[in-house]
């Protein structure tokens, strides 16, 4: 069975129901709507991003559904991204953030995790100035503020 997803710029995407239901948002919508054929509008997702999201869901269509984790594991590793996912995430920054936003809106937790891990890997090992350069951010601290922050948070040990 197929469903039709409509991007914010009015492009139609025909997708297998099983693939579309990797998005919990869409899954719930389909349950509410029942046997209707009407296309599902996604006003927050452009065609370019939706293409990528569907590509991800297609590849992972047979993955087991993740159980939400209750325990707070502080040693969450970000270096365990699968080979295919790593290649999938080799996009420019703008697309990367669009994918994260879409994964959040559509409630696709594994994709959200992969996106966030990718961003985390960009941040890791960099000084504040390097992080600013990586994301085109302007420093809005005064030198006094910077000194104060450093002092207040120096104590933190490894998580």
């Amino acid at each position: 069975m197929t469903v039709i997803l409509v991007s914010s710029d009015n492009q139609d995407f025909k997708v297998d129901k099983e693939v579309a239901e990797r998005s919990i948002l869409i899954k719930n919508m389909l349950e509410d709507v029942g046997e209707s054929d009407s296309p599902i509008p996604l006003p927050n997702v452009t065609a370019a991003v939706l293409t990528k999201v569907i590509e991800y869901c297609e590849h992972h269509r047979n993955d087991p559904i993740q159980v939400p984790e209750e325990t707070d594991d502080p040693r969450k590793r970000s270096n365990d991204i699968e080979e295919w996912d790593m290649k999938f995430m080799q996009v420019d920054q703008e697309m990367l953030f669009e994918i994260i936003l879409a994964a959040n809106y559509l409630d696709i937790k594994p994709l959200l995790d992969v996106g966030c891990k990718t961003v985390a890997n960009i941040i890791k090992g960099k000084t504040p100035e390097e992080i600013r350069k990586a994301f085109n951010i302007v420093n809005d601290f005064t030198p006094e503020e910077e000194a104060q922050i450093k002092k207040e948070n120096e104590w933190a040990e490894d998580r």
Partner: protein
Amino acid sequence: MAGILDLPEEIRPFIGKFLDTKAIQACLLVNRSFRRSFEPILWQKVVIRSLKSNAISEKNHVFVDVSALRTRTLDVHNYVIHDSVASEFYQLSFPHLRRLQLTDEGLNLSSRTAKNKDNDFLTRKYQRQVTDQTQLIRLNPTTRTLIIASLAATPDAEFWETIYSTWVNPQILHATGPVAWTEEAANAFWKACTRFSELSLLSLTIESSPILSTLTFPRVRHLNLQTPSIVQSRWLKPQDHLVLMKACPQLKHLTWDATALSPSQTFAPALLSEFRQAIEQNHWPYLDSLEFCRLYNKLGKELVLLLQAFPNPLTALRLKNCTFNSRVLTVLKDKKFESLKILKIYANCGITSKATLDILTSCPNIEVFRSTHIYAGDIDPSKPWVCKRLRSLTVCFIHRETASNRAVLDLQVYAQLAKMTDLTRLDLGQYSMGYTTSDPEFHLMDAMNTLDLRLKAGLGQLSTLTKLRFFGYANSFQVTGQAEILWMMENWKELRTLIGQLDGIERSALRAMEARGVEYRLCGRNI
């Protein structure tokens, strides 16, 4: 849209949970928006140390400012106090606290086993801290995990009573060392234990409690009991272990580490017999996972009887310093192999190479298997391994000194390993101590003749292990080199951890490992 600053506030914690402390500290200095998003993550785990803690000898230890901490209580999920610290650190309520740890590294045990007179002196000395600790417990009833270890300021009755009557949903209790010095405190301790679902009681010293035998622990599914390595006054006696175990009807997993139950102790056989009888009567209908340490050494017969008596399917069995002889293997094969998914035999159990191979060639559903060693010459190519679902294997492949055709034997090992395509973890490291009286077969000299791990010896056959995430060979006297590393990166796409000695590695191989995010260590942690 512009970039990372446009991500809504609620998504930034999702990124934060993958960052280490250094990365978060760097993020705090990027700009104000970043600081707002990431500062709460830094405060999720707070560790407070006192001046006399051993860790202070490290340079640049910085103390947490208590007034800053007071503004951050909503962020704290994990609160750790080492030693005795200022009262103010105990007068804090953390609405989202999940884990609380109180430890005292400076405890001198002998001082607490002194006569009553000295006991009163010590009680007065630590009274403030005891009261403070109780206050902390009172202010944090949502805590799920409590860890206490070696507390010189041993909790009083009120501490345990508060947990028992006010904590909302406690789950895990890890207690090491002294937990109660008076009968009143001991009674309250056991009552508090009835609220938890997982109990780890290690080297417990506790006053005798008359009510222990009257209590039930209805929530406990996971029980870990360990006696101290030297007998002390007020230790939790092994007889009480059994009383406690019998009071846990929902028990699913049992770890029993009891040095003191060596055959030289007169009560040992009677106790193990009582344990076995309870098993026979199906006292624990949900019990399917057992771990014994120093319990059946030289009492292999007892272990055989126990496994024979075990009425239900056994899913997991772990043995350390327990006799694993051919009779034990026979009983397992006869009754338990169908259900067994996890089997771990550590050093000093006396398991032979042939027995290890027997398990691999006849236990169909095993997923995690650990043994000490396999002599490559014992492998019979006509007897393939039946464990198709094997995902984790820890064993050291070695050659007898007399083996003359090592190259051929190595190829046989690789041919067999290559068929285990579900493996995610392969550890060929050497963790046993070599020749001991408990491991008579395993000679230290043989441990130096381990499986050759180079491509030219046959490593290439393992290209079939496409799911491999962990590969280790610590202490195996083997090295891998440039060619092997590049081959691993090419063929084991999911590899994320590598442990063992490298030699002759060039920058290109190191870069390949870094790009993949492979974590490399020379030696494993004590696994």
